[in-house]
């Protein structure tokens, strides 16, 4: 599969519907401290099935929903979707009959998350497997969150070995 677009709405500071084109090669993301760059990274991990709030700098999963500012009220839902190209037909069998895969996750305050692939409800596990089969996912070594390099440097040797095991 190939990653084409990331869409967010109501996710953390991205209250307005936002679309990020993931082009070929190297895409740079720049901006001042606190403007939302790492939130984009978290949105990507979240839609791929990140289910630990701690790993999203949150105490509860509802914390990823736009919590409001002095000018705007909080939202009650957040949605992130990923548009994948599947022309190489490398997706799992049940999802492998389409050129394009549209994976989405929507959370409703105090209700929970719903995952969909091409409009059809699926379990979180199905989404995690879809990405795991393509050697990617929320915890993949290819997803290097802010501070992760420093954590690796400070990690005990046994913790580092576990990272290697997960990558294997």
């Amino acid at each position, binding site marked *: *599969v*190939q*990653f084409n677009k990331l869409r967010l709405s109501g996710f*953390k*500071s*991205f*209250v*307005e519907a*936002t*679309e*990020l084109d*993931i*082009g*070929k*090669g*190297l*895409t*740079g*993301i*720049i*901006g*001042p401290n*606190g*403007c*939302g*760059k*790492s*939130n*984009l*990274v978290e949105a*990507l991990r979240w839609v791929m099935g990140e289910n630990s709030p701690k790993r999203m700098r949150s105490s509860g999963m509802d914390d990823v929903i736009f919590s409001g*500012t*002095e*000018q*705007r009220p909080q939202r009650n839902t957040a949605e992130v979707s990923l548009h994948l190209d599947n022309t190489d037909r490398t997706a799992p069998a049940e999802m492998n009959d389409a050129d394009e895969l549209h994976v989405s996750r929507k959370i409703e305050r105090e209700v929970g998350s719903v995952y969909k692939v091409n409009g059809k409800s699926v379990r979180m596990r199905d989404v995690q497997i879809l990405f795991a089969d*393509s*050697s*990617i996912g929320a915890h*993949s*070594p*290819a*997803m*290097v*969150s*802010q501070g*992760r*390099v420093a954590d*690796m*440097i400070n990690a*005990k*040797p*046994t913790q*580092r*070995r576990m*990272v*290697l*095991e997960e*990558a*294997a």
Partner: protein
Amino acid sequence: ARERLLSAFDTVNAHFQKLFSRLFNGGSAYLKLIEADDPLESGLEIYAQPPGKKPAVLSLLSGGEQTLTSIALIFAMFLTNPAPICVLDEVDAPLDESNVDRFCTLLEDLAKDGKTRFMVITHHRMTMARMDRLYGVTMSEKGVSQLVSVDLAQHALQLDQQAA
């Protein structure tokens, strides 16, 4: 599981040694399983020798050297199981200019087979200049993020004007 770990270890170690020498423009490094006979109980130690220096465990290196060595390990794991996307959030922060340069050269090399798309979050001007395209994230309304396309040439010009 033991077999899988040892086989992954060998592949990652081979990639790691080559990537280290590329990022450091010389020197050598290797991984070692320590502290236990059973690989599933062991620790992963990193030994690195930047050009002209004595071999040392990772904890004795400078901040920038530790970062560059860890980047080599991350990409070694990536090459062992290549992913369709790779996201790097400010990994270049502790690097000096010549190390950022070699880091970007490695990224260009990893990207050229077209199988992996890279998203690189950075504050480094040199990294920005080496990207194929730039997106800026702004908060012109407080607390609300907006994504904008940034013209590379225009951006480089603005930075030079600021510096002057």
